[in-house]
């Protein structure tokens, strides 16, 4: 089970990036939130996006799933261009798992129903198989014993782990994490990060927007530093944290690491 979802989907292609952004631009009114973003993420890579608030890192993450539209440029998932709307886009979204800051579990559905909804309604999986898949994923993130409760009855950390299971149930090619621990109480952050580290070790391709520098050091293959809508710097975590090149990155790290 563990390796099957991580390796799901894409056939081994000749070095084609799994996620490719070419000259992506986006404005919110007069604000240029994404400025000529170019980014390649290869299969199995774990990319951590960090940067100050308002730097456009969440928007970047959401644009890859087209929860935000872009003004121009191209986004390709596994070689396929993101379609505008409709059925095709829905299919493509199913290949891209998304974990939100505020969990966004379906409030009227039980934990297990949250996980089975996608497999049942999008993948047209049979009831029994979907339930089995859901239970194995819930066991993997350690909340199998909560399966019949409603989301509101779980702690934030548990809800976020269910949200990860819900995304994994679609056997995505890549997982997007949009500040997955920012809404959590401090004592619950680690249980979620542990799940994510585990996922990274299993070879899942991940793009993670986070403020958790510990996670970046531990699990990232590459750190991307964004500021003012631009990718200012990218490097291995080791290099980025010990020897940042740009002034913006030095300034940012100086503010968060001197404690």
């Amino acid at each position: 089970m563990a390796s099957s979802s991580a390796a799901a989907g894409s056939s081994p292609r000749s070095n084609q990036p799994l996620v490719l952004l070419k000259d992506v631009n986006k404005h919110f009114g007069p604000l240029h939130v994404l400025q000529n973003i170019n980014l390649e993420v290869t299969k199995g890579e774990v990319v951590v996006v960090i940067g100050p608030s308002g730097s456009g890192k969440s928007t970047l993450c959401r644009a890859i799933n087209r929860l935000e539209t872009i003004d121009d440029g191209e986004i390709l998932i596994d070689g396929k261009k993101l379609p505008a709307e409709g059925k095709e886009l829905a299919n493509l979204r199913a290949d891209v798992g998304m974990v939100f800051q505020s969990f966004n579990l379906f409030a009227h559905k039980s934990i297990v129903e949250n996980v089975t909804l996608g497999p049942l309604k999008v993948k047209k999986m049979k009831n029994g198989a979907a339930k089995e898949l859901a239970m194995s994923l819930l066991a993997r993130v350690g909340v199998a014993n909560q399966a019949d409760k409603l989301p509101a009855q779980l702690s934030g950390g548990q809800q976020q782990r269910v949200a990860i299971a819900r995304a994994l149930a679609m056997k995505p090619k890549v997982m997007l994490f949009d500040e997955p621990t920012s809404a959590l109480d401090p004592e619950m952050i680690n249980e979620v990060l542990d799940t994510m580290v585990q996922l990274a070790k299993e070879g899942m391709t991940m793009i993670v927007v986070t403020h958790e520098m510990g996670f970046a050091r531990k699990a990232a293959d590459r750190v991307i530093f964004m500021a003012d809508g631009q990718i200012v710097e990218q490097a291995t975590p080791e290099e980025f944290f010990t020897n940042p090149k740009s002034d913006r990155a030095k300034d940012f790290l100086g503010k968060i690491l001197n404690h």
Partner: protein
Amino acid sequence: MDSLTEYFQSYLTALETYNVVGALWVNIQLTFWSALCSLVLGTVLALMRISPVPSFRWAGTAYVNIFRNTPLTIIMVFCILVAIFQLQLNLSSDFNFNFFLWAIVGLSVYHAAFVCESIRSGVNTVPLGQAEAARAIGLSFLPAARLVILPQAFRGAVAPLGNTLIALTKNTTVATVASVPEAAGLMKTMIEFRPDVIMAIFATFALGFVIIVIPIGLVTTWLSNKLAVAR
């Protein structure tokens, strides 16, 4: 004391002559069918108003603004004078049943606008993240609406829908202009022929509607608490 007994006696003879309960039963039937039809139509309209397609949104908005702002009496008279007499659009070959059906049409198209807005207020109780999560697992608009948004929206819309239902119940009396033999029409007849007990007649019909409407209010209040989505 004697005159009071006398008044009560004449009131009883009025009740024996005219079938008040039967007339109120017609109102209940009108309410039931119009509620059903306007719920279906209102849901479709609400879907149009939240859909990603601009022309659907435009059409839904136009419908709501036209029908919400038109007096029900005018819609009802239109159904009779234009639809039945001018255009000869008959929904039933039975003369009286035809009027009854057209009254339901008039009540439904009018209240659908209010139902639509009630459901939309329910949609507003559903956080945006719910729709985003639904889209993120690959559901397109209609499945996301059916499986995630509307089930929560209806729970949030119980109270405003209840208000609309109460308004509908009382508005069924407008069907009297469509010659449907319902309570308001009967009351007019009774007042015409039994002006001696006019106060009691008013009181009877007022009480009749209060008895019908109070349970609706109680049930919707209870339901809206019971069905509320825990977040």
